[in-house]
């Protein structure tokens, strides 16, 4: 099936505690931190590749198109996904400050109308803004069904529908969704057997996590096509729906860590603090 995977770049999530606030409090600055693909979107790329390949062969079952939005250097984010194995890229040039969940969803809707994918697969949230909204908003704008927080994904009826296991806070909720659809993915989608496409043998076990780009993949990615356009080219309403008036760092935890060596000492401290 044809799959569109939007990928956001975020500042290195493993160093998210090193982001700073500008003196004015107007901006979050991530200077000195590397840009990385949003981990959940990277899992979406992996899931799309698993859906569209017959594992162990070079046979492809559909086209995987990746898209990113932001300043021109987000091309790097698109190339990384192409190096993993995606077929083609789309770059929507704009400034990060021009984007919020609603604008992203409107922009994706415009691209979807042009590309007509069977599935839009994306991360459940970007780990910078932590909003967890763009996929749901896109589905509503398109009038498509959705399945959020997917931990398992299997095609049925040759791709006419998908059975999706959603990781919800009370357990696992299973939906059967007709395509075209929007699916947002959770961590567990990249478990060895998270994705089934009816072509790769059901007992095939992938390596845990998103695949690394091979050297060959990186070389091939340089030749893959990336279409560039500006946010304005899409002809959408570009007004933001939210305005951040201030950012601040969280209050530091009070007190310092007391180290103890024995259970008795610990219990004594906890009793003294009246927390047991």
């Amino acid at each position, binding site marked *: 099936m044809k799959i569109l995977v939007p990928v956001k770049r975020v500042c290195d999530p493993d160093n998210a505690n090193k982001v700073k606030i500008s003196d004015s409090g107007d901006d979050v600055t991530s200077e000195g931190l590397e840009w990385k693909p949003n981990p959940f979107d990277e899992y979406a790329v992996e899931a799309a590749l698993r859906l569209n390949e017959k594992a162990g062969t070079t046979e492809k079952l559909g086209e995987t198109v990746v898209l990113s939005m932001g300043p021109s250097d987000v091309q790097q984010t698109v190339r990384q996904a192409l190096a993993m194995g995606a077929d083609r890229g789309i770059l929507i040039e704009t400034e990060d400050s021009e984007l919020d969940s609603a604008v992203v969803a409107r922009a994706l809707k415009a691209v979807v109308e042009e590309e007509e994918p069977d599935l839009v697969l994306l991360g459940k949230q970007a780990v910078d803004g932590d909003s*967890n909204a763009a996929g749901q*908003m896109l589905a509503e704008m398109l009038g498509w*069904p959705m399945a959020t927080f997917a931990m398992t994904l299997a095609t049925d009826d040759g791709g006419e529908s998908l059975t999706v296991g959603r990781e919800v806070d009370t357990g696992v909720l299973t*939906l059967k969704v007709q395509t075209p659809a929007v699916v947002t993915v959770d961590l567990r989608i990249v478990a060895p057997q998270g994705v089934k496409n009816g072509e790769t043998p059901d007992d095939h076990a992938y390596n845990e996590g998103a695949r690394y780009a091979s050297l060959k993949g990186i070389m091939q990615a340089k030749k893959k096509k990336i279409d560039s356009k500006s946010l304005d080219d899409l002809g959408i309403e570009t007004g933001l729906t939210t305005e*951040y008036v201030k950012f601040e760092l*969280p209050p530091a935890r009070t007190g310092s860590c007391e180290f*103890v060596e024995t259970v008795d000492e610990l*219990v004594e401290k906890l009793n003294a603090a009246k927390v047991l």
Partner: protein
Amino acid sequence: MTDVLVVAELMDGGLRKNTLTAVTLAKQIAEGTGGAFDIVAIGEGSQAAAAEAAKYGARKVLAAEVEGGYVAERYAPTVANLAADYEVITACASTYGKDLMPRVAARIEAATISDISGANIDGGAVTYVRPMYAGNVFGHVKATTDKAVVTVRQSEWDAAAESGSASPVEDTPVESDDVADKLEFVSLESQKSERPDLAEAETVVSGGRALKSGENFENVLEPLVDALGAAMGASRAAVDAGYVPGDLQVGQTGKVVAPKLYFAVGISGAIQHLAGMKGSKTIVAINKDKEAPIAQVSDYFLVADLFEAVPELTNKVKTIKAG
């Protein structure tokens, strides 16, 4: 005057308690702006849930009966239709609220403001505070649209108290949309537990990869969990390793908890785990490695082998609780 609609979450044919955190926000906005708040109970068992929701001081409670399991596409049209009468539409940021509410927002062309930890009201305008970057930044944000769809981080908000009176309950019509025919609810598999709900427990004991197996969660950690009357949680590493199911995960992308007492057992303290628990009042780490990053947020750190320390601690706790 800002009128607020609370979208209740239903569970097992009744009101899910996390709804009351959104009620607290609704009360704050209504009182702060001279508006009113209503609650809609939508789903299977809406009458029973509405009767429960009527205890918290809403102007009125609306009941919309939708049979079958929850899917956002079957709920969003009704909620969006009701939203015409309100400026703020809110729900708890559980997986239910996170799934449904942005869909509602898109339908009514409102801003989505997710997972807020606070709200400030000044001259009738509401500014929301929300954790971002795994809780490392707090953003203060306003909606530029006429309406805002807001979800509330349960661990940062108190549950509303009963008002002592009963709000009137009205039935409200269910709206539908063709998109609901394009998917079906298949099943919800829940593991029932006798323990308190992770998101609501006063004490949480979480285990990490150092537990080494699901059996060790059962044999080593669970006795401590039960001796403390706690809920059990886990790090992402422990869930990824298959030791425990995903709904126990505490972290940026799992559950965010803020109990009075949190035990991190054999958890090194990755940023995404800290994001889910650093709001806890007292944090106790048990770890062999005193350099583990969990120390940055801990109040007490027992430097010990968990396989020796946890059973010993369990016995001490049992003695204390029995005494």
